[in-house]
């Protein structure tokens, strides 16, 4: 609401803004900085505490240990794996020894924080895209059948095809993608619409969830059931660099594609008719964007299972903070998603220890649900208009 003087200055202002000017929106910068702070604090807590506790100072020093940070061989060893590292650097000998703390932090605790951040990014971006594609603010990454397809395949693998459990991450991700295709096929009738897609998602979800629940009956081992629950509620227990390596390339691809597609997402928000009359090939764009969102969701499922609520809340929070421009929403999700996920994982990994003193962990999906419910209660109380269903 600036004064009359802005009328003449509008065009010039926009031109000088340049290609990346929109990134320096004060609200977006604040959101990003606050989120980074949460990730750093949450990450420090995660690397400090656990079975081998150290002080925050020790943990900090271990994270910033120059023996790793300044040695490209160690860095590559972690990020791309030992084999690739040796191929790139041509180094054949033994890697230099690391301090005990550094080993624990870099081998076990830090990758878990990174996986949490990656999962948060993926779910946030995926949810943001699905909320635009379905034009429904209550859509989540799992609205078009992805979670039920993945869940069914997880149960099938664990209960029926036990021999394939080594490929469980891949199978789960594929199951989600296939379920999405089935949903699309059901919804298709001379094109689709947001409502048809959501209904088809409900249909496929209902059937697959029943089958999934049914399969629990055939699990004869409590270990299998626990493992299945971990996968279907989402857990970061035991994740390490393998998971980072598995998810990172897909995450980078999905993030790049969703940023590239943000203008299309903005146009979808103007409604199908307007988008069409502005020359958008709406079915192609909708399918392509949904595909990107499924890719992001599948990448997160492959490493963490089905983490609920994050993909629903994060875009919602971001939109409330930075407005509805999808360029900003996507960038915001890249920060807020990791913040929420890392913070939730602190609760999942250490919460039980604080509350009961027992050294056990709970699936992170339980914590995100515990955060998500009250957040929506808060929104419901505060907002009159929640958008249309």
């Amino acid at each position, binding site marked *: 609401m600036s004064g009359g003087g802005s009328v003449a200055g*509008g065009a010039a202002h926009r031109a000088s803004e340049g290609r990346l000017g929109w990134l320096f929106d004060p609200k977006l910068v604040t959101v990003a900085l606050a989120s980074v702070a949460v990730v750093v604090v949450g990450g420090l807590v995660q690397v400090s505490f656990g079975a081998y506790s150290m002080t925050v100072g020790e943990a900090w020093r271990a994270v910033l240990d120059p023996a790793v940070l300044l040695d490209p061989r160690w860095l590559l060893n972690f990020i791309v794996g030992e084999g690739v590292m040796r191929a790139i650097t041509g180094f054949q000998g033994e890697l230099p020894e690391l301090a005990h703390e550094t080993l624990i932090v870099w081998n076990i605790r830090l990758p878990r924080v990174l996986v949490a951040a990656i999962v948060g990014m993926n779910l946030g971006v995926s949810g943001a895209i699905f909320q635009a594609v379905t034009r429904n603010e209550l859509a989540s990454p799992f609205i078009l059948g992805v979670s039920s397809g993945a869940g069914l395949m997880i149960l099938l693998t664990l209960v029926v095809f036990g021999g394939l459990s080594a490929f469980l991450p891949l199978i789960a991700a594929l199951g989600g993608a296939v379920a999405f295709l089935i949903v699309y096929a059901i919804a298709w009738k001379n094109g689709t619409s947001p409502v048809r897609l959501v209904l088809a998602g409900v249909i496929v979800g209902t059937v697959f969830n029943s089958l999934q629940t049914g399969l629990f009956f055939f699990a004869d081992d409590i270990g299998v059931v626990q493992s299945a629950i971990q996968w279907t509620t989402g857990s970061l227990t035991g994740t390490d660099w393998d998971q980072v390596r598995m998810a990172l390339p897909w995450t980078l691809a999905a993030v790049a594609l969703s940023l590239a597609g943000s203008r299309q997402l903005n*146009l979808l928000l103007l409604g199908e008719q*307007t988008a069409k*009359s502005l*020359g958008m090939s709406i079915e192609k764009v909708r399918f392509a964007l949904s595909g990107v969102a499924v890719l992001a969701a599948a990448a997160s499922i492959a490493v963490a299972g089905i983490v609920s609520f994050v993909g629903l809340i994060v875009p919602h929070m971001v939109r409330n903070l930075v407005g*509805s421009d999808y360029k900003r929403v996507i960038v915001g999700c890249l920060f807020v998603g990791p913040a929420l996920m890392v913070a939730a994982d602190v609760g999942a990994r250490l919460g039980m220890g604080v509350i009961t003193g027992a050294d056990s962990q709970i699936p992170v999906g339980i914590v995100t649900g515990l955060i998500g419910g009250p957040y929506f209660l808060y929104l419901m109380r505060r907002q009159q208009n929640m958008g249309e269903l």
Partner: protein
Amino acid sequence: MSTEHVDTTRTETTDGPDGSNGADASAGTPDGSAATDASDLDGEDLVLGYPNAPEPVIDGESIAAEPGAVTALVGPNGSGKSTLLKGLATQISPEDGSVLVDGEDVHSMDTKALARKLGLLSQESTSPNSITVEDLVYHGRYPHRGFFERTTDEDARAVEEAIELAGCGHLRDREVGSLSGGQKQLAWIAMVLAQDTDVLLLDEPTTFLDMHHQMEVMEIIETLRDRSDVTVVVVLHDIEQAARLADRMVALKDGEIRARGAPEEIVTEDLLADVFRVDADVVQTENGPRVTPLRARHED
């Protein structure tokens, strides 16, 4: 310039094989309008319906919009005027017949190329509340931009012109959600103007607006008419408004075109009785015909 085309317009109260007439009429136009770059828009033998309805709403009608002029579609509720407009705008794909812009079939055109030629203002438009008017108007430049292209000076110029023509410069930094219905409509009109098309289709742009904003919208259309570089087809509910704005009028009833021609030929007591089923007094004034409806006709 419309006088050059008066001979090509005719009133047809019967729906015979008038499709050929419409097509011939438009085929003969390029000579007179060589100075302008306004486009021809022809619908030929259009059959338009909705997927769930057994009968098509429009069953084999042809319409030719005069280049650079304003053509108004009028008719009672359910007469198919909006359907015809949506058909021309390719929002509905015709079951039969074709829509041609400058002789090219719109369904064979690339969607963005078409959107650079033909713009549509729908009756109901939704947008996120927090988008600013200026950002909304910039969306009108979508068909002019490549996938990764940023906005150019030309985009900025088109947006400026559109905002000025639509008279919503004072609203440009406001959020769309905070505007009144009339202000919103001006913002949406600015968006389709920024699209910079040769053909502009407007679906009831004045309905539900207060008098002031109705006049604002009418003045925008009058400006377009005076510039004669855009072919405008507009659906209007108000027949007096239509007569005042349009160079040509097309009256529909029950999905059939009952009459077409200059406003003074169309707005007659006979036509009002036939198409709108009202007895009315029509008085010609300097501001166009004044219609005073007297009573509804019940003689079905």
